[in-house]
């Protein structure tokens, strides 16, 4: 799973967000390193929707503009959990090897 996809799914874990909300949350999660573009976001959402990992939660019209809120499906939640465990295990292994190599972590 690519980083933007992972970050977007993390953003949607436990809450539903609209497009700009996801972008802001991804920015926060990445500590400002990721500035997701709208075109990128919707390409990602298209894919996640097609794969059944996210779904539309509700729609609102704010200031005359459509806001569509998304959340994770059950399958999306499971995929995110699996990916997170995998990433966590990889991170632990990386830290272990760095410590052995004498790199302060």
């Amino acid at each position, binding site marked *: 799973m690519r980083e933007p996809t992972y970050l977007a799914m993390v953003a949607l874990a436990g809450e539903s967000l*609209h*497009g700009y909300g996801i972008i802001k949350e991804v920015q926060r999660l990445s500590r400002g390193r990721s500035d997701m*573009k709208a*075109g990128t976001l919707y390409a990602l959402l298209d894919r996640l929707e097609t794969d059944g990992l996210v779904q539309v939660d509700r729609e609102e019209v704010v200031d005359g*503009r459509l*806001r569509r809120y998304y959340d994770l499906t059950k399958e999306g939640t499971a995929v995110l959990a699996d990916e997170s465990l995998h990433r966590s295990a990889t991170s632990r292994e990386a830290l272990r090897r760095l410590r052995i190599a004498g790199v302060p972590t």
Partner: protein
Amino acid sequence: MKTPEQRARKWLRLYPRAYRERRGEELLATLLDKARDDPRIPIREIRAVIVHAGSMRIRQSRIVTVVACAAMLCGLGAAIGWLSGPNGNVSTSTISSKSALDAALMALNARLTAHDTYVLEHDQSWVAAHDTGSPGCTKAENPDGCWVPPPGYISAIKIPNAPFVPIGVPTPPSTRSPQPAGTIGNMIQPVFAPSQYTVVNSWLTNDGSQPIVVFAGALAGNAEQGVVVVVGCVGTVENPHTVKAYPTSAEDGALSLTKTRGSDLTLTAKDGTVYHFNASTDQYF
């Protein structure tokens, strides 16, 4: 001056209609939410829209996106085209989407410098734009380094059996006599074969030292529905070139040239959208 919403709506027209109907308003809202932070709508945002829109069109297998990018001979110009037609009759399986999108970015945001060289090839049935990197660039000139294409790098697109054809863009009356392609002191060579495009206009810069040529072309069979190529050509290799391509969708139809003055020109689409273009100074917008 266009508002952010007008600009955003213009770029969202790159998406297939069905996608716009499904996602357009939502995408617009997100773009405008982001534009609250930067009302100019950064080029990076537009690029992402172009890439996404291009991929949607390619995915639907209903659209052919063609990009051509070229440098003029004698180091006198630069040219780029970006073509598309909703009823394209070319199998999109032959098109590398990455190359197409790379080239689309070039077409829509190309600003050639003395160290960029694009070479266009065509054999009547396909075009390709190769970025050859920075030939002649030295560390003394450019301490930041010279870009060298990695092995295998190519920004190109091949469109088999899709020759370019002229489109009906009238040559406007001008105090400076428009000239046929390739005749301005033999300095300008057409990017495409003469039968494949229309020279919309050509003139010299105000000081008379540089030619400016605007070409237009469209995919065969899609003259009314394809994307129009507009090419600005001015300057020398020592000076930056600016090139632009103006897409039109099926709703827009062909562009018409409504005004020229010096290196400025105005193009009007059938839906009334007006595009301003300055061949010597314009950037993206």
